[in-house]
């Protein structure tokens, strides 16, 4: 009786253990985990109506600067491997412009300047998309020091603008951040 009992137990357990196996697994692969997400986000935008640019028709410059502190985030800063900026202007004012964006560091020093010449509006669609600005390697390192963006809009001579003037200068822009984590 007892020996029968043990026999059955033995057979069942041994057959389970021996028939049980596992495919070749490699848990070390977890070290190979590398996340490479790319995030698309707004960068900067403005809309300057002509009737706010009242002048006598001569050259002049308006400017403003704004904080841009995304690189304060250490995780983002450490894992950002490449960035791309895209700029799109629409000018419906009968004046030519040069818009420049200055990337400024903590001391207010200009790290890089991006310049965008924009022709005057001549009654036809005037949307200008500029080639993608790519930031990699050294250029990316400079970008990461940015904590402020200075905007300068140089207005070239032409028809004087008053509070009845129509049209405006618009900027829409985006940034794509390529991260590598792991």
């Amino acid at each position, binding site marked *: 009786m007892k020996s029968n009992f043990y026999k059955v137990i033995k057979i069942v357990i041994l057959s389970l253990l021996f*028939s049980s196996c596992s495919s070749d697994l490699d848990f070390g692969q977890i070290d190979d985990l590398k996340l490479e997400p790319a*995030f698309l*986000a707004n960068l900067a*935008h403005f809309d300057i109506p002509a009737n706010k640019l009242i002048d006598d028709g001569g050259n002049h410059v308006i400017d403003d600067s704004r*904080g841009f502190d995304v690189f304060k985030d250490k995780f983002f800063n450490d894992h950002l491997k490449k960035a791309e900026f895209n700029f*799109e202007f629409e000018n419906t004012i009968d004046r030519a412009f040069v818009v420049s964006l200055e990337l400024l560091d903590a001391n207010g020093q200009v790290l890089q300047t991006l310049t965008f010449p924009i022709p005057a509006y001549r009654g036809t669609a005037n949307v200008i998309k500029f080639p993608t600005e790519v930031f990699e390697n050294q250029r990316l390192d400079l970008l990461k020091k940015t904590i402020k*963006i200075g905007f300068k809009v140089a207005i070239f001579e032409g028809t004087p603008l008053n509070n009845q003037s129509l049209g405006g200068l618009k900027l829409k822009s985006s940034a794509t951040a390529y991260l590598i984590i792991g």
Partner: protein
Amino acid sequence: MKKIYLIICLIFQLSCFSQNKEILYNFTSIPQSLMVNPGADVSYKYYFGFPVLSGISANLGSSSFTAYDLFANNGVDFNQKVRNVVNQSTNRDKVVTNQQLEVFSGGFRIGGRESKSYISFGLYQEFDFFMFVPKDLAILALDGNINYIGKSFNLGDLSMKAEVLSVWHVGFHKKVNEKFVYGGRAKIYSSGANATSTKNSGYIYTGQSSTDPNLYNQIISSDLELKTSGLSKFTKDEYEGNVVKDIANNTFLSGSLGLGVDAGFTYYIKDNLQLTASIIDLGFIKQSKDIETLTYKGTYKYDGVNPDFTGNDAPEDIFDEFDKAIPRDTLYNKYTTWRPTKFYSSIQYSFGEARPDDECNCRGKINTYYKNAVGAQLFAMSAPREPLFALTAFYKRSIFRKLEAKATYTFDTFSNKNIGLGLAGTVGAVNIYALFGNVLEYKDLSKASSATFQLGINFVFQDRDD
């Protein structure tokens, strides 16, 4: 090398299912069947479990992927495998684990020789883990939003809970007459560590519209909450202890306390037709030790930088604005967690009457028993969002008077061809049992979507003439 992987695989499984113990349920030659129905028709003069070896059980289940899918050594790039697993999963797929280890257990009959009232008691340790696959967040981490303009990433996909606890329990069951057995068990829970994050909502959205002043319409709306107890000290920089030791210490000696009950019955409709039902772990834990709740609540619309050339110079900083809009708050409120409550029920038809062939019938009293039983069991368990269900058909057979086997076929979330096999035998006073769920998948554990087992050794003493 393969052996090491197998061991890791087993540990991975130990540390990874639903708590259905369909083979153990109503397997009354095993005293531990009282743990899944305190009103099971179990009888003994007294018994005690072999310390630490009386009840070892582990369940793991993953409804959408297996260890093989992720870790197969097949030359496929690991990142591609992760991507495949994420793609084949939905946010309804879950990964569930339960592990239990009896530290000690025992029981004795109370009242005289003719009494049919029993006490049972013990201490066991339990680990529970439950998580839905956070699909949207996984996509965001793998790919970012670049190819998903117009998609709203659901933060509600994040839903998980985990707990390590010890359970002190004492139960009572009574066979009122030949037809009816009832029982109940009181439990004191001591939770060493708990993490609960089940009530999340919100979204991360990037849309595009030509009428917008901006290129994209970007909104993060977040209502995230993670409650922890017994864990916050490990996240502090100055912590220098041993995490495993400290959690064990908390679990057994100074955990957050809770109370619960089990209840159940067995009713013989006819001599060979039996109905049972039980409810297990109807209880709560008041999480009160080393508690910390983290929240991220708020809505943030990201517009990028917006210069104002009219001299209106309100300073704004993206980072600070975000922090203000969706602040990280830490709260220290006590909170209550409900134990995953289990419900079992079974109906069993027995046939093949037999006389014990291994005992002499000296007293003229004939104790016949049925060699075979077939039936069905239902299992349900409370879980975040919706309960889990399983339906089991079973066949039980006495190979000898004191060696019983049970085979089960279970349909549940994880598998629709889960065959379980169990064997329990008693020689002298030694009671040994081994129950294996999903045996078809034991031929390659790494490809198993779920696996369960329960093993144990007890010493059971009956009256001599039993």
